[in-house]
């Protein structure tokens, strides 16, 4: 049990030191970096329906399960 307690990740509030062996370290690499955010938003500007209000209003679904 002692081993388990030691290996369990810390979870104190706001602890910036994460265990080094966490998977998904990807985390830093695989999410949008602050530098990329502007270009992502620019692309969203191009893709978003130009009449957003009408688009949202007309998206009406029937209920399902």
């Amino acid at each position, binding site marked *: 049990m002692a081993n388990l307690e030691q290996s369990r990740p810390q*979870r104190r509030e706001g602890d910036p030191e994460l265990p080094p062996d966490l998977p998904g370290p990807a985390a830093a690499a695989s999410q*949008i970096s602050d530098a990329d955010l502007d270009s992502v938003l620019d692309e969203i500007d191009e893709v978003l329906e130009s009449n957003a209000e009408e688009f949202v209003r007309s998206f009406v679904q029937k209920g399902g*399960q």
Partner: protein
Amino acid sequence: MTVRRVMGIETEYGISAPGDPSANPMFLSGHVVTAYARAHGLLPGKGGWDYSTEAPLRDARGWELGRAYADPSQLTDIDDPTLANVVLTNGARFYVDHAHPEYSGPEVTSPLDAVLWDRAGDEVMRRAATLLNPDPVRPTVALYKNNTDGKGASYGTHENYLMRRETAFGDIVRHLTPFFVARQIICGAGRVGIGQDSRTSGFQISQRADFFEAEVGLETTVKRPIINTRDEPHATPDRYRRLHVIIGDANQCDVATYLKMGTTSLVLGLIEAGVAPRGLELQDPVGSLKVISRDPTLQALVPLRDGRQMRGLDLLWAYHDAAAHWLEDRGEMDPETDAVMTRWASVLTRLTADPMTLAGEIDWVAKLRVLQALRQRDGLAWTEPRLAALDIQWTDLRPEKSIFASIRSKGHVEQLATADQVLAAVTTPPEDTRAWFRGECLRRFAGSVVSASWDSIVFDVPGQQSLQRIPLNEPLKGTKAQVGWLLERSRDVGELLRDLVGVSD
């Protein structure tokens, strides 16, 4: 205890006819399914669903194809497209449920495979819609992997888990309810709008939280319960229970789907072993579901029956720790279980430190990060329609319209399945469940398969007067290892059935 278990995901996709709001969604859904079925030689009567106990709702309002270029003649061989209901060569069921096209993925045995065949479902839907959209500039149909229109309607993404029949249902209800109330902080898909009809502006973690109004019940479309009591095992009933889970969002992040399936399977394992954490019963599960959904800081406390208060994170840590202790005590840890446990702890740890660091793994965080950036750049209030539009378009299955697909294609989302694996899973069944036999029979002998279901296949064997029904009551029988050689050597369905009888003798 292991994360491995027979499981599956089924999703009802949102559907609309761009520019034609009067289009009948039942017929539109039917056309999606029949277009795909026809293109793949899976017409009703040839690989249709063995489906006699239910009939979809019909709608008397007439369907008219609103666009000249979606050739109606290609669909006239189907009398009523809303009855479209087929089995795919990957073992999935593809059909119309209520007013939505639904993909029910094949039975798999691991959370990673659940991710793979769930993404295959997105690809099936995308291809089906493409068949009806020869001109992408003027599409006739658009599909969305979401769960609400924000105007009061919700449609489901369900999970199914095979459990041992002897586990008391009361134990499942008692120990699973707090977990289901809390797990949205990992597998919520994010939503712009609060309240079933979005009458309050703002963002919440879950697509579905506002649509759950009861703790336990049989309903799935009204007064939806956190724990659904449907008892339809699609397997030997005295051995198995199929837990039908209706409280979940449609995920697009692989990691979220993976943890949704993996951690739920482990919690069910704790309940089956009688070692689920005690004392977590909530005073007000339905209310707590909404409280947690509406707090992206994850600091909101919900009251327990014993008087304590906990955050969603605390509840999930309690389940995680119980699983860790049990696995440690038993000395059982297969690699797949280990991987789920490690990722579970990692995600909880980082959610505790700063939820926004999970934008590459968790749907609601990914969506919120982009929404917040847009709000900040343009000074937008949550009432701004562009934010609600982004929420809808986040889930559009058309790559050129989908905001999520755009972000994923640029490497901003961690993927657990490769594009090649997803493409293979569109046509290939999982090898380690009865889905393999079902899918392979469709691939090899579609012309002789009259119908199929989760637990049966009905063949029309040349030269025989009566139809032959093969029961598939054991979800782990019919695997490639068990009957692959048989299918390989059977030149026709008659040989296959003769050999199958020999095997079962």
